[in-house]
């Protein structure tokens, strides 16, 4: 992971808005067109063989960021570079060959797999769509390799099964195999284990760890800081469409600089009953992303906000109290 290599993914000042429907009356009365500022200036980089966790509460824009990266939603502004090439403006046809290099695994393997397809057909489908593998035998061998890579071995045991004959962990591995069969360089994992039982989560997370070690870049979306802290190389904390803190996972967890990160970390329940602490609970809820607060968007809930926070919008910069040159936070007081 030297700084000289081209990053796998570079997102620069990405903005994604969803228009709020005005309705006929609103249109006739010329009410202003409002928009949900789902992603409001996100800058992010991912190296090959790196796992970055995008952490935040529902509605903070982490899933929209991932969808924009995969060009599943169109950004209003900003740029997305994949392996050095700007893909922000690419049309559908030009995107197609890129799509096999960037794949996504969804949260719920009970929903994401077609219940009528056997494992063999589920994992083979992406090959057919992308026209890979000339013969049935060639595709079958690619399918077997992908299943083995996803930890379903021997593959023969699983090929003929239907999703309902698999456990939750096995289903998620099939979904991962269907992504791996195209040999992607980037994998987006949207809450990959939150629907799984605790006893099998670790297995799926360690699979992601192995894939990472083989050079795959992984963008993992999660709300679980304990998981992010254990499995990610870097953590990016999102609040209301912005990354408010970002850095090496250990550094962010042990030396958080943004008050939002500090609060989030303080409410994570610990396994050890002796580690009961007074959590720093933020009152109220995240404001809606239609009316973003002025200045620092966190100031209405911030326990340490001062006057200037209501007017000045802080940008990500290296805080004074950090050892790591790659640790950044968007707080005027950090």
């Amino acid at each position, binding site marked *: 992971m030297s700084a000289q290599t081209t990053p796998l993914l570079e997102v620069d000042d990405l903005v994604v808005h969803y228009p709020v429907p005005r309705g006929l009356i609103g249109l006739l009365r010329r009410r202003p067109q409002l928009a949900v500022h789902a992603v409001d200036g996100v800058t992010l980089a991912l190296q090959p063989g790196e796992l970055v966790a995008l952490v935040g*509460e529902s509605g903070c824009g982490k899933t929209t960021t991932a969808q924009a990266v995969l060009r599943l939603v169109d950004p209003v502004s900003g740029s997305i570079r994949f392996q050095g090439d700007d893909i922000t403006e690419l049309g559908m046809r030009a995107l197609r060959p890129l799509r096999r290099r960037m794949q996504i695994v969804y949260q719920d393997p009970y929903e994401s797999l077609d219940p009528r397809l056997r494992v063999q057909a589920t994992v083979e489908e992406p090959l057919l769509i992308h026209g890979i593998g000339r013969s049935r035998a060639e595709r079958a061998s690619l399918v077997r390799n992908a299943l083995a890579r996803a930890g379903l071995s021997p593959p023969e045991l699983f090929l003929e099964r239907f999703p309902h004959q698999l456990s939750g962990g096995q289903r998620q591995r099939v979904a991962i195999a269907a992504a791996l069969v195209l040999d992607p360089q980037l994998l987006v994992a949207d809450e990959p284990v939150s629907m799984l039982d605790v*006893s099998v*989560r670790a297995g799926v997370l360690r699979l992601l760890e192995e894939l990472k070690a083989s050079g795959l870049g992984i963008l993992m979306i999660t*709300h679980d800081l*304990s998981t992010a*802290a254990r499995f990610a190389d870097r953590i990016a904390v999102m609040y209301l469409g912005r990354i408010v803190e970002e850095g090496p996972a250990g550094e962010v967890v042990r030396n958080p600089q943004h008050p939002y990160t500090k609060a989030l970390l303080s409410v994570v*329940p610990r*396994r050890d009953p002796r580690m009961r602490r007074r959590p720093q609970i*933020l009152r109220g*809820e995240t404001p809606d992303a239609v009316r973003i607060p002025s200045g620092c968007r966190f100031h209405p809930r911030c326990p340490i906000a001062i006057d200037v926070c209501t007017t000045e919008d802080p940008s990500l910069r290296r805080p004074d109290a950090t050892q790591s040159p790659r640790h950044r936070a968007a707080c005027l007081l950090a």
Partner: protein
Amino acid sequence: MTALLEVEDLHVWFDLQDGGELHAVQGVSVGVEPGERLGLVGESGCGKTTTVLALMGLLPPSASASGRVLLEGKDVLAGGEASMRPHRWTDVAIIFQGAMNALNPVQTIGSQIVEAIELHGRARRTAARVQTGELLESVGIPAARADRFPHELSGGMRQRAAIAMALSCHPKVLIADEPTTALDVMVQAQILELLDSLCRDFGLALILVTHDLPVVAQLCDHGAVMYAGEIVERGLVDTLYHAPRHPYTRLLFAATPDLGQEAEEIVSIPGAPPRLDRPLVGCPFRPRCDSAFGPCATARPLLRSVSDVQSAACHLNDLHSGAPG
């Protein structure tokens, strides 16, 4: 002295469509005292929700139950609906994971709570409305929001409204079935803080059903770990974490990532829980256990006390007095 709520040797069977039976709960015994907080932990399908539905008398018609559910010494399970009905909500109340499903979407939250209060004859009209306002305030919802519909509230506020409704008849026991699973961490922390203060301030007994061990570790005094329809270990949460006497408890903790322990190996438990539609032979956990030995294949271990504050169902405890593994 009789316990506030005591479940003794509870069994629940579900009739299956093919004529078979699924033995979902296989002899569960638990109890709570006023102000006590018990965490019922386990993976999906282990029977934790079925257990609490049985003790609320809310099982579907396809289920049959045996055993005793004693409320202040009185068996409310034996007489069926007739004996359960006077106690449901007034003595034992329950909240569920999806608060949206517990609330009527076309009625304001206030009128739903007023209805519950009037139905149980605790107050009428103006007095019921005043009580509703107080209830909402006590769970952190401004009384003025009583005229809101469920969809106008956030997930956290809906769960608070469901808690207010569950408390409307001043129950002694509150059962919370995965109360924070669908919520964000910050909102989860707010709800856990609320449950904590309700237990502390009103002496409410809490049975928290969850798959989330850290939540139990933070909120509960006692924990009961369920596996394959039975409790395999129970005790003070502190001893469950620091000195587990059942391998499943130990492995479950080891499979849970913990903030601040990033260097630690996180290990999943191989295999899957057994099917409960056929008789179990030996220890149900044996195929996934890392310390199984001779008797585990043939004899089912019984839940036996291993100290003043802890019981476990594991043959290893017969072998030596130390902790297994």
